[in-house]
């Protein structure tokens, strides 16, 4: 290969001068919330707490049905200190999250390759797609009873349930990502000498990442909802079970604590996922 068929020095001066003139700008993070928007969000939550406080103060409902903020706070501190029914809150949260993360892990590691392959090869899609389309609209609790019969009442059946709930959104996101793929990416890669495997791993997979991530976030949402309901149906531990058990004894302050914990952990998980998304798919929106 002849790299030396030109006057390298002349070219060097030329290009460095040019490069200096080119204004290359690295964009800073976009859509940062303005001060007013932040203030509005804080104000909203302030008023929710205020209304809650006023209603309980007026005594419209008995504290047994609607506990005030102070009572819920006390219940929270009590649970933090002594746990619920003698079991620390971390154990309950840990039990729930173990089910959730095991299921999500297996869902991601199967749904991503299967979904991408389905989008890429019509024959694989012909095998998988109708099955996924059939069970996807079913409420997970509908087949949970069967799973309990087959796999017992403990963690296995719950993990399989959550796996099934999380699989469909990720799978569908992957299929659609490959379908929407800019074909010129694939063609240009082939014209640059990439074989089928390289095209799949170096082009199709990264180009699909933005949609895969959206699918994973949806899957987390679905799995989390399913997790809590499955723990309410049959369990002896977990945050969902804690809420159900508290409702049996009319401990509404504990119910409130449980719901608030679920909400906050949900927000934290999603924030974590969005953080990962920004780090991994820094080029999102530039495709």
């Amino acid at each position, binding site marked *: 290969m002849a*790299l030396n068929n030109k006057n390298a020095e002349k070219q060097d001066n030329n*290009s460095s001068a040019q490069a200096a003139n*080119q204004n*290359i700008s690295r964009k800073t993070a976009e859509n940062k919330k303005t001060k007013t928007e932040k203030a509005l969000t804080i104000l909203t939550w302030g008023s929710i707490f205020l209304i809650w406080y006023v209603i309980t103060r007026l005594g419209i409902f008995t504290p047994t049905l609607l506990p005030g903020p102070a009572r819920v706070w006390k219940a929270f501190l009590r649970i933090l200190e002594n746990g619920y029914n003698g079991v620390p809150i971390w154990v309950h949260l840990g039990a729930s999250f173990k089910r959730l993360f095991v299921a999500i892990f297996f869902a991601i590691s199967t749904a991503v390759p299967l979904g991408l392959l389905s989008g890429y090869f019509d024959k694989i899609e012909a095998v998988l797609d109708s099955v996924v389309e059939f069970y996807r609209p079913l409420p997970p609790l509908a087949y949970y009873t069967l799973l309990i019969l087959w796999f017992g009442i403990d963690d296995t059946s719950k993990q399989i349930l959550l796996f099934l709930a999380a699989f469909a959104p990720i799978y569908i996101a992957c299929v659609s990502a490959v379908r929407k793929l800019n074909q010129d990416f694939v063609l*240009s890669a082939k014209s640059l000498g990439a074989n089928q495997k390289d095209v799949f791993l170096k082009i199709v997979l990264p180009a699909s990442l933005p949609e895969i991530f959206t699918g994973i976030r949806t899957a987390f949402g679905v799995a989390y909802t399913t997790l809590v309901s499955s723990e309410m149906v049959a369990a002896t531990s977990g945050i969902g079970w804690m809420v159900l058990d508290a409702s049996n004894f009319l401990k509404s302050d504990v119910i409130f604590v449980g719901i608030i914990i679920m909400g906050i952990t949900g927000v934290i998980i999603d924030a974590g996922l969005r953080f990962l998304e920004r780090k991994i798919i820094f*080029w999102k929106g530039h495709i």
Partner: protein
Amino acid sequence: MTAQAKKESLIKINNLSLEYGESINSTLALKKIDLEINKGEFICVLGPSGCGKSSLLKCIAGYIKPTSGRVLMQGEEVDGPDWHRGVVFQSPTLYPWMTVNENVEFGPKMRDLPKAEIKDIREYFLNEVNLSGAGENYTFELSGGMKQRVAIARVLANYPQVVLMDEPFGALDALTRENMQNLIRNIWEENNTTIFFITHDVDEALLLANRVVVMSKQPGEIIEIFNVNFTNQIFEKGSKEVIYNEDYFEVKNEIMDIIHNQID
């Protein structure tokens, strides 16, 4: 040019026709195309939009199979895309998850060249498109013209036998386009590349090509082929003054007449 004197045939298109769609609703996109691309040539294909210029390029690249006829490259039939025929698209299809360096290295990496050689090639061609300083940037940080230059460097990094370009400067502003035309002319002269270039801009074709192929509207047929050498004159003199010459106007008017007759 020495390469033209030899006239070593690189690609032969024999009686190529292309139909889109099923039997009843089919449209004939290309009709009986015969064309020979020689080593070291700069061929520009001109024609009204929708005349099948891009389809012809896709047939040569191996992206679509002609309905009848054949594309032969050095005697062998083209069967799918490969790295001997590099393609530059109208919109640069750079991979946004890779840096400029990684984009340019993509082809040589796919061919498992040794690391040191990949680095040399990358540096040489980034230099060639005047982007040596931009290697660590991501492609979405570049302007349109810079992106297209990276795309050209990425294709050249494979030392393809022929570079197929599908209106590569069509989306660029007039000033950038002129710079790009000079750039691609210099690269062609210096590296003895073979270029097959599609455009709808008569001036662009005349300023770059040493053969201009004029195509008819649908179904696309080759009407006439002009041998010109304005590009060599521009390269030698370093200025575009040839465009004020009598013979430049003559050829341009002739081509314009053919194209206008097609549109009416």
